[in-house]
């Protein structure tokens, strides 16, 4: 089984990389991009029986920093 973890900076935390991407898109002529937030995707290949609760614990202890980031988990 697999899990896909999305980690994003929380709202209210400035994302300078997203801002730089937004500026670049505007400079390239792509109009109408009001904001860009850049996050990361982490794919986990898991032993059978690993629960979503286990993955949540991995997220809170290592994969995301709860001071600045939030995460979502997709199990498949």
């Amino acid at each position, binding site marked *: 089984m697999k899990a896909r973890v999305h980690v994003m900076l929380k709202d209210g*935390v*400035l994302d*300078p*990389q997203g801002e*730089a991407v937004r500026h670049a898109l505007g400079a390239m002529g792509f109009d109408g991009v009001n904001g860009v937030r850049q996050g990361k995707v982490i794919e986990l290949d898991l032993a059978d029986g690993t629960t979503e609760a286990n993955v949540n614990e991995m997220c809170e*202890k*290592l*994969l995301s*920093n709860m*001071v*600045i980031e939030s995460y979502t988990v997709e199990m498949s």
Partner: protein
Amino acid sequence: MHAAVVVFPGSNCDRDLAVAFETAGAKVSMVWHKDTKLPDGVDIVGVPGGFSFGDYLRCGAIAANSPICNEVKVHADRGGYAIGICNGFQVLAETGVLPGALLRNAGLKYICKTVGLNVVTSQCVYTEGYSAGGVIDIPIAHHDGNYFADDETIARLQGEDRVAFTYTDNPNGAKSDIAGILSANKRVLGMMPHPERAADPGHGGTDGQALFRALSGILTPA
């Protein structure tokens, strides 16, 4: 004073920090990240700068979960002294020993230069060799030094006199210009600038010396 300097794969200021402690009169033990115990009688733990674990995932995140960091946490929790510099500050923030987090510099660039720091408080062992309100020149060298914490945490740090240093000219977007903060008991300091790189006339500046000198006389085992 017996100081332990933690070494991770990718640390690169560990020996500079050891020399600064030694010059201030300390006995220094180097401690590897896989060690599960700090040496007996350690008064202060130094978490050095560098790029622990290649800055993978987040700066300091993997180091913060290494075996020795559990011990550093136990040491700090029972009232032991610890100083985290640059990557070491990132590690201590990731462990939760210090509040907040270090984000990518607002200008996105790695910055390596000497900056002015306001000494905000002299009411802790690390800064008592300085005058509160004074300015010292200390080098920075980081890509992720943009201090962030929620407004409530910033207000608490300021209200409890736990901001040790602020930048005179904010280079990285850090909230409230914060360059270094203290734990609630003021025995743990985390700072992005490198006092160990301004601790010898050969460095081109000696404003970091007072920090290490102040430590030497007064530490007793926790």
